[in-house]
């Protein structure tokens, strides 16, 4: 364990200083706290995984770092300097690139137009199309993405290919921190594998990677540091060598929660298989909850709405 730590600090002498540092970051919408007291340190050449269920505050976190939202509590430091981003453009200028879950690619536009969107190369009045196609082709080939026709609209490509184009684009445009929002969520096993390889490639290139996911297995394959969010708070913040996959999975599923859940479902006969005769009508009876259970569910719902 100590050797791993030594190697980590040894291989990147500058990495002690975080590229991106969130101190006690919080965001509230009116009286709703979407995010509270989050601390994240993203270092060069490291993959920081942020895990959490739906509504855990992952998207809010990304939007703060990407410059889509401002934060209301705490401080965000880039290279040690406190920053607030007014727009995604400002975040990009500071070297933070975000690859969104719903893909920041316009589906009807061609591959090369998408690749250079917002960073077009100009020659005189117009665009230097030849050069852009050339660079786009070279960059995609370098990352092992085979797209024979760069004039093809992005919408016709597979989800994995689109993710890879978005990642290649972020790396090419000098990102130092790259945020990947659920890049493997909609992909099959093979395609997820390809995307995970790009995450490693980005790490090896010296980028700080923030990998947002709800899949602990994918996270554990590539992550150096793990943060689990729940209802807008950090519930786990651990380095790789303080953790096993099982622990991570259990934490992610909310180990304690799982126990509670099985308690809730007591009395359900799991082995039972019900035989239905042909032609017989099926009735589903709503499960009955006693007063205590009902009030618990309500208070949980109220908590979640916050």
């Amino acid at each position, binding site marked *: 364990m100590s050797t791993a730590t030594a190697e980590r600090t040894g291989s990147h002498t500058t990495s002690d200083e975080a590229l991106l540092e969130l101190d006690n970051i919080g965001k509230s919408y009116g009286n709703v706290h979407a995010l509270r007291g989050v601390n994240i340190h993203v270092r060069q050449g490291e993959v920081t995984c942020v895990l959490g269920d739906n509504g855990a505050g992952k998207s809010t976190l990304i939007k703060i770092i*990407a410059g*889509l939202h401002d934060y209301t509590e705490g401080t965000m430091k880039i290279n040690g300097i406190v920053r607030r981003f007014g*727009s*995604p*453009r400002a975040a*990009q200028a500071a070297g933070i690139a*975000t690859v*969104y879950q*719903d*893909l*920041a*690619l*316009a*589906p*009807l*536009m061609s591959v090369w*137009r998408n690749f*250079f*969107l*917002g*960073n*077009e190369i*100009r020659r005189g*009045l*117009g*665009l230097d*199309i030849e050069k852009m196609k050339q660079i786009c082709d070279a960059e995609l080939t370098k990352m092992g993405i*085979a*797209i*024979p*026709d760069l*004039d093809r609209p992005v919408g*016709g490509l597979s989800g994995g290919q689109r993710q890879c184009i978005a990642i290649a684009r972020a790396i090419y445009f000098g990102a130092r921190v790259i945020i990947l929002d659920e890049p493997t969520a909609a992909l099959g096993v093979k395609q997820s594998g390809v995307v995970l390889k790009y995450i490693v490639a980005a790490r090896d290139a010296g980028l700080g990677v923030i990998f947002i996911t709800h899949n602990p297995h994918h996270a554990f394959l590539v992550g150096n540091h793990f943060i689990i969010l729940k209802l807008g708070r950090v519930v786990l913040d651990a380095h790789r060598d303080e953790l096993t996959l099982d622990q991570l999975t259990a934490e992610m599923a909310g180990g304690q929660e799982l126990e509670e859940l099985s308690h809730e479902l007591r009395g359900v006969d799991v082995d039972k298989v019900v035989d239905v005769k042909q032609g017989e009508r099926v009735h589903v009876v709503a499960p009955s909850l006693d007063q205590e259970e009902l009030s618990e569910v309500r208070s949980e719902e109220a908590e979640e709405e916050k």
Partner: protein
Amino acid sequence: MTATTVTARDERVATRSRAALFLSRPEVGALIGAIAIAILFLAVAPAFRKVENIGTILYGSSTIGLMAVTVALLMIGGEFDLSAGVGVTTSGLTAALTAWNFGLNVWVGVLIALIVSLAIGAFNGWLLHITGLPSFLVTLGTFFVLQGVNLAVTRIVTGGVTSNDITDMSGWTSAQHVFAASFTIGKVELNITIFYWILLTIIGGFLLLRTRVGNWIFAVGGDSSAARAVGVPVVATKIGLFMAVGFSCWLTGMHMLFNYNNVQSGQGVGNEFIYIIAAVIGGCLLTGGYGSVVGASIGALIFGMTQLGITYAGWNPDWFKTFLGVMLLLATLVNMYVKKKADAR
């Protein structure tokens, strides 16, 4: 013997042939339609075949085309402008009424009209951004507002429904030369609007396909949140597009004023749909993110040919709008069919 395709890198995707690439362009449907209509009227209308009438047909097309070019850009940017039709009238009235009412040089009126038209465009874009309402609703609002203002202000200033005669005011002759002159080349008489139309088409086409602004227009229409996320100034692009439509309104409005010597305060209503039809026939998607400026101009040409072709053929011109509606549906279907075929190849 079976032909084997040589595959470069991915065996699932064969390189598309030049023909398929050509057919996948958005303006192909309009081009086919324009050729078909030209052949139809050349066959049935003897007057259509006369060289002298080319100028008349092109003139009719140009008054629509001047607007269709910027309306198409706006549609590719994902928005509509229903106030474009009455906006033309507003611009013409502004120039005529300010010049007459304050006794100004006509050119000052022209300049004020330009400012007003650009301001209306900017206001549409700004309102869209502030309210977050669909542009269909926002510009429907400005459409009615402008329609009322046109009638009411004209009534206040002139006491009637027509702008006053300003033909004897200083600057009229030079302004008429700029906005409504006509030239004779050979046997064909060409109005200056035809040159403006072609110029605007070239500028618009270049802007859309060869500049970064064009890239942004495609992106804000295709997926505005994606565009914003990569740093495209979405709001500025959209406001700019509305202002471009404002510019077109001004140019067309000035032509109307200097060609007919006055402006009727009630005209222009309904023309906004003709501009949209031209853009859609030219391959613009209603949902944005796809389309062509050249296509929109071909759409305007189809409009001009049909309008005059029906008259030349001796058909009842009452049927013109019906014909236009059928054309719109056919063009949309052809566009869809061609695009599907080309993408599948």
